[in-house]
């Protein structure tokens, strides 16, 4: 998504002689076939999310016809679901929820993970031991089970789902961050900041974190994708928020009818795959851009 906002206009980019390296990185990301394919697919999903309120102002729940109308049999392009609601509208509105869940939970777990990892790596010693044992504990419990428990505790709403996903997915970020911070804090500029008497908080936020961030950014797309899959899995088990239309909820509704009307479960399933595929392609492209030596030989 960050990549989207800064899609380089090639002519403008050429006109500018000195580009910041980060910008070059983006260009490199988006120039690859993977990057282009990822962006295009993601673009479709983003467009669906954006167009949902315009194309389907009645929301995803409006009942437009007989339940179990197959795609092509009635007015609804993708058929109707178990309650006669338009599957097309559900898919468009569902795109919003999937993206929202993905982005928000990835951001929250990035924030937690970066904070924990940076503190553990920077302070070391006892702080490190305490934080890492805590991280271990969260990681030792199978994450999907843990998500289920948290959602059950808080009862399934979109907020509790996002929170639960964030709460189980930060440890990977924390570990990565810690490893990176351990190497960054040995570097001269951090040492010199210490010597001039900067506070730890300032050093961490202005020096350490920015310089340790790149590998973490690389896994951000994976976090988003995992969050989308987890939400769908929860909804599939009936732990979805009934007041938002998510693809997982639709799969859950369609599952009992899978023999009679498999399209109800498989169409949203296809959209989940599409979105996750787009994110993975983009993630791969970003990864290649960050580690160009692995790209082509």
């Amino acid at each position, binding site marked *: 998504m960050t990549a989207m906002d800064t899609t380089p206009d090639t002519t403008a980019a050429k006109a500018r002689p000195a580009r910041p390296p980060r910008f070059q990185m983006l260009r490199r990301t988006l120039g690859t076939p993977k990057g282009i394919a990822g962006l295009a697919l993601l673009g479709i999903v983003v467009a669906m999310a954006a167009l949902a309120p315009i194309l389907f102002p009645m929301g995803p729940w409006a009942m437009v016809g007989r339940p179990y109308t197959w795609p092509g049999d009635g007015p609804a392009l993708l058929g109707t679901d178990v309650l006669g609601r338009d599957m097309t509208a559900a898919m468009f509105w569902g795109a919003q929820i999937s993206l929202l869940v993905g982005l928000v939970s990835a951001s929250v777990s990035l924030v937690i993970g970066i904070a924990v990892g940076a503190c553990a790596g920077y302070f070391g010693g006892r702080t490190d031991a305490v934080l890492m*044992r805590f991280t*271990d504990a969260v990681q030792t419990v199978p994450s999907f*089970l843990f998500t289920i*428990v948290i959602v059950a505790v808080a009862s399934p709403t979109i907020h509790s789902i996002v929170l639960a996903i964030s709460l189980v997915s930060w440890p990977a970020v924390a570990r990565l961050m810690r490893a990176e911070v351990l190497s960054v804090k040995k570097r001269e500029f951090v040492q010199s900041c210490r010597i001039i008497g900067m506070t730890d908080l300032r050093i961490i936020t202005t020096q350490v974190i920015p310089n340790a961030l790149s590998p973490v950014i690389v896994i951000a797309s994976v976090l988003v994708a995992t969050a989308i899959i987890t939400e769908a899995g929860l909804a599939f*088990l009936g732990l979805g928020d009934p007041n938002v239309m998510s693809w997982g909820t639709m799969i859950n509704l369609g*599952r009992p009818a*899978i023999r009679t009307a498999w399209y109800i479960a498989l169409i949203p399933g296809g959209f989940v795959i599409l979105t*996750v595929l787009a994110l993975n392609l983009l993630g791969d492209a970003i990864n290649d851009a960050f580690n160009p030596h*692995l790209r082509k*030989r």
Partner: protein
Amino acid sequence: MGHYLRNRLLQAVVVILIIIVGNFILLNAVPGDLVDVLAGRGGDMDADLMASLRARFGLDDPLPIRLLDYIRNVLTGNLGYSWPHSQPVLDVVLQRLPATTLLVILSVITSVFIGTLTGVFAARKAHKLTDVILSMVVLVCYATPIFLTALALMLIFSVQLGWFPLSGLTTAGAEEGILATAADMGRHLVLPVVSLSLFYVAIYARLSRASMLQVLTQDYVRTARAKGVSERGVILGHALRNALLPVITMAGLQITELFGGAVLTETIFGLPGVGRLAYDAVFARNFPLLLGILIVCSFIIVIVNLLVDLLYMKLDPRVELTK
């Protein structure tokens, strides 16, 4: 070595304690308790019976006392009692463990084997058409949620084609005998294992392809070639072992994730595993059982992690026992 093991086990104990305390507090924040569920299932309990059951189940003591009691019991190997099952928690968990263990072991073996093979093959054909096609297939597998794979496989192979049984671990009441039972279980496990594996095959394929490509650029591979080692010998004798290192780490993670995390697969294929048990325990508010599952799973995971570390050390002599 002994020092290392002691340290690791000590860490494990701390981790498990954090898990117990954390989950104990978390679970007690849940609305409703076991008695509510029992009353609800039957539909007609009176307040007196509910109160007496709460007293029996130890649900009316204050939280800190229950927590301390619980920890004391766990330390003596007593994971508590699952009232609805009329059995000690450990017994209930142990009954469900074999199904999950089979599922996990089989899918780890399958996915590591096929995934690595695919990855190495793709790395050999890097950037050729075969590699591009394989990578695309792998990417789609990687993007497909496990429950969708499971659903699709069941729809095709059990429902439409009738090749595999729909649900369960064994054919109940089928003939006895170890071989017959094993074959029967095998048939029941094919689809769950395949659906769990497909995603991980994708992971291992990606991982081992990248790792193989990276290893193949290493100087020691060139040395081996300069020594006159055949291409096959280079791949199998020199590159693979190095390329396997990240695969081993991932396999450890996969086991961690699947023990208890295979809820969806167990649900779809009706397998009597711990994941499903844990899921049911959440909704039955059977917290001694849920905590017991978490503890048993954590214990297994700690052991697995230790084994993975030892294996990693065995495979990579550069890793030393530092802690």
